[in-house]
């Protein structure tokens, strides 16, 4: 109470006695002689004060006498204090205010990371961008392919990052690695992600130099975090040309449950519109996701996420050697369950732990030969983070990842074969984020991995450094060693294969203002101990070795702007890459077949008020992809013509029976370009000495999608 009394007395005194007054007047200016408008000028301990005017001038009349302090404060400037002796006269004060230092809000090393969907300021893409993504039909992850550093490999699907293959990018859900993040592969049919980013709170896509927390990935990690607490109850149904999807969320006081059920059958679509594939049975898939969360204690949260998916399809595939159509059938069942706990111990320890189990069985039948591949894995992980101070935090943890692999080959006649392995990998990591100086922060860490099967123990250092050039911009550097066990099929043929290695060097500049983002990044990546094999003896263990190598170097640009055009928003990505590899069954060192030198994607979205709609257009360009034409030369690279795809999507929002409804239509390749991804050649020349070939084409030259989404609970969560 006494604290309050004194100032009140002072207030009282100054307004009470009118016979003795002091005038304090003057001006407030910046160091550059500009007036500071609206500065707060007051006597400390009183509520008596005034504001500076348009010219920075002020005048303050007070009844107080004695020694006091004049305080000048203004947002954006350092507070200035000036002792004064008040003696019933006029005091002239001309004060220069120093500008605030650039504020470094948190230690974030940005190099090579893209955040999407998270409710943070650094996001590059939000959920609406994912929902209204015009490119990449039926693959929710495809929005990531509109970011730089990725290659458009339309016949493969998945993420090909900076000259890396699809399996060099690992998908992490709630901290744990997903066993089979993509659907099973059929020749010429791109794989799709099993998990829709829409079900997640946020996605971080790192195209290199990522945290020591993650291992077993040579190129990239895609980190997806499931929703902690849904905002509200939800129920909705989506009906589209080739399937249906139901979603629902129920929320309780301390827990919640969400589910998504999806069925897709491409039969109507491929029968109405064109397809370049001769289907015996059009692709059919079923996908069920269940997520539940339970609050544990004051700040703890337990989450369980389970996903089951089933895929069936069969097609006729032209065999260039037998010159007959082979009937290939695929049946794939996949289950992934992850449970995670995140909470605090004491004041500044954060603990997160998790366990996952993944089971995937893929049955391929090719002209009555059966190949059945069973992949099982589990992972246990514990991470502890200690926030030591505003400028220092440390994080460390351990991880056990155990993989079981079994591949059964049962031919119509003759012996059956079986390949299998069991490979536990034990890892420990440490990482610290330190703000060294006001503008410089760094992340230093390392990861140790022990691979029992190949009897290896190695340490991978990871370092990054960020320098704030201004409040909105920074330069980052990154370096790291990365390792990954070879592709499971190769490993099953030869269990002794060593871990593949890569090394990343990255330099990045970025400028973010809330509605404009600009990034430019250059990198160099070195590959070592890649798997090489001799295709003639492809199943003999000695045909496989670690003698492959390669490199990739390039520059990535990204610019997003939602300011310049009213109601419009666009982003553009451009990547240029030079990469050479000698791995797999390559007979000489050349650019990998999946890789185009130039990749461009441009996405434009426009909001229309009436009729209320979003229109989004996407243009993808890739320069020609390499292939080898044995008719010209077996040791020379040819390039396909460039890939062009202009896609358009329209989303119209309306109400049907009072329910929020979104009607959408998408068309890809509007201009009808004849895109070719490469060519397949017969392994032997025909009678006239020519190697017969067929082009590798997109599944459809042009795709169409129409559908509607109805929400029974009002606006959907975005």
């Amino acid at each position, binding site marked *: 109470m006494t604290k*309050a009394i004194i100032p009140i007395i002072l207030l*009282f005194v100054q307004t009470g*006695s009118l016979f003795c007054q002091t005038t304090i007047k003057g001006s407030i200016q910046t160091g550059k002689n500009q007036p500071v408008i609206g500065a707060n000028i007051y006597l400390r301990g*009183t509520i008596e004060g005034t504001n500076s005017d348009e010219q920075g001038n002020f005048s303050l009349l007070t009844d107080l006498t004695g020694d006091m302090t004049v305080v000048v404060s203004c947002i954006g400037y350092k507070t200035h204090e000036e002792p004064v002796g008040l003696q019933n006269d006029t005091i002239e004060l001309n004060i220069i205010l120093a500008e605030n230092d650039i504020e470094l809000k948190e230690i974030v090393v940005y190099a090579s990371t893209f955040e999407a969907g998270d409710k943070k300021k650094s996001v590059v893409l939000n959920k609406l961008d994912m929902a209204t993504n015009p490119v990449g039909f039926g693959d929710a992850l495809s929005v990531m392919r509109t970011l730089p550093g990725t290659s458009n490999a339309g016949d493969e699907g998945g993420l090909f990052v900076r000259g890396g293959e699809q399996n060099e990018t690992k998908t992490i859900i709630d901290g744990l690695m997903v066993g089979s993040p993509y659907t099973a592969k059929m020749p010429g049919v791109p794989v799709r992600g099993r998990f829709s980013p829409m079900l997640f709170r946020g996605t971080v896509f790192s195209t290199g130099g990522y945290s020591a927390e993650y291992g077993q990935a040579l190129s990239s990690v895609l980190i997806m975090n499931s929703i902690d607490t849904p905002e509200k109850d939800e129920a909705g149904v989506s009906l589209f040309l080739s399937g249906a999807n139901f979603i629902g969320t129920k929320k309780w006081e301390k827990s919640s449950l969400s589910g998504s059920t999806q069925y897709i059958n491409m039969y109507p679509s491929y029968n109405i519109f064109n397809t370049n594939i001769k289907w015996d049975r059009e692709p059919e898939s079923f996908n069920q996701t269940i997520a539940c969360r339970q609050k544990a204690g004051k700040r703890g949260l337990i989450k369980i996420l389970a996903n089951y998916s089933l895929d069936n399809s069969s097609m006729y595939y032209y065999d260039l050697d037998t010159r007959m159509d082979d009937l290939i059938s695929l049946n794939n069942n996949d289950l992934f369950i992850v449970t995670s706990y995140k909470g605090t111990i004491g004041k500044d320890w954060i603990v997160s732990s998790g366990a996952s189990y993944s089971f995937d069985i893929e049955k391929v039948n090719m002209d009555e030969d059966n190949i059945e591949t069973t992949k099982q894995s589990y992972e246990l992980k514990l991470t502890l983070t200690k926030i030591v101070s505003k400028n220092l935090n440390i994080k460390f943890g351990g991880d056990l990842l155990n993989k079981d692999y079994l591949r059964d080959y049962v031919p119509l006649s003759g012996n059956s074969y079986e390949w299998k392995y069991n490979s536990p990998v034990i890892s420990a990591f440490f990482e610290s984020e330190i703000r060294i100086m006001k503008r410089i922060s760094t992340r230093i860490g390392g990861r140790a991995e022990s691979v029992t099967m190949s009897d290896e123990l190695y340490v991978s250092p990871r370092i990054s450094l960020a320098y704030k050039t201004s409040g*909105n911009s920074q330069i980052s550097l990154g370096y790291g060693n990365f390792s990954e066990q070879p592709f499971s099929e190769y490993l099953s043929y030869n269990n002794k294969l060593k871990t593949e290695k890569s090394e990343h060097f990255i330099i990045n500049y970025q400028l973010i203002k809330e509605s404009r983002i600009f990034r430019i990044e250059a990198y160099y990546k070195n590959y070592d101990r890649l798997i090489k094999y001799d295709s003639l003896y492809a199943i003999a263990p000695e045909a496989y070795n670690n003698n492959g190598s390669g490199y990739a170097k390039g520059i990535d640009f990204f610019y997003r702007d*939602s300011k310049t055009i009213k109601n419009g928003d666009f982003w553009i990505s451009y990547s240029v890459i030079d990469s050479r590899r000698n791995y797999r069954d390559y007979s000489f060192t050349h650019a990998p077949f999946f890789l185009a030198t130039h990749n461009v994607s441009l996405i434009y979205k426009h909001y229309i008020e009436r009729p209320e709609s979003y229109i989004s257009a996407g243009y993808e360009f890739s320069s020609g992809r390499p292939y080898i034409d044995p008719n010209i030369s077996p040791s020379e690279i040819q390039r396909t013509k460039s890939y062009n795809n202009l896609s358009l999507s329209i989303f119209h929002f309306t109400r049907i029976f009072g329910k929020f409804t979104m009607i959408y239509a998408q068309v890809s390749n509007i201009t009808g370009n004849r895109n070719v991804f490469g060519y397949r050649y017969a392994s032997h020349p025909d009678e006239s000495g020519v190697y017969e070939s067929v082009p590798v084409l997109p599944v459809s030259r042009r795709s169409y999608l129409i559908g509607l989404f109805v929400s029974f609970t009002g606006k959907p969560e*975005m």
Partner: protein
Amino acid sequence: MAQRRNGVTALRIMKFKKINKMKIIFFAAITIMVSQTIAGSDTLYYSVLKKSIDLAHQEYKLDNYRQLANCSERICLVYKDDWIPYYYQAYAYINMGFIETDESLMEMYCDKARELLDEAFKINPDESEIYVLQSMLYFARMAISPMINGPLYLQKASGALDDAGKLDPGNPRIYYLRGKSVMYTPKFFGGGKEAAIPLFEKTLNIFRNFKPRSIVHPAWGEEDASKLYDECKAASTEQDSDKQPEKQE
């Protein structure tokens, strides 16, 4: 209420008596102690703050809110345990954020407002009005770049209003902001002028019988709510007659 007024009146009368300064202090101290025991310590700055609030509400311009920010800042520094001056300082910065067009300034005002709200929450975590203001802050952030931040902050803003409603369902500003948000939300997210009408009706109904707890407790929103209500009404009738709607704002 009556007792509090008496305390203030007593002080005012004394102010006009030109007597010995020491005596004033002595009497003031006693009077204050008395008035504090009766009415709490807040009342003295009320008239100063009230004047500043009224000035801010006269015209929606930067200077008016800047002086409110400064005035409430001065009060904050003296009355450290009172949420109201923090509330008004945050309120002023949020409004400055809405008025300002320079992105980096908008951001700066919003960051400042967030700090102030954190302080206010520390003092009174169960005050519905602070949640309302937090929601308003999210709207201000959203305004910085609606295309990118819109969906994210809309959700947060709505969550803050839910919290405000749990603490005091009779707070009219909840429905005013909800209505305003629905009004400017694309139909895609369940918004539109028509959808906002019932919310504005609700807020205006509450305002009709609304009595602020004191002269400085939050009382804003009624005038704007009724303006926006009229606008929504006009738009919905126009839509019925299938005419082009007038431009928003």
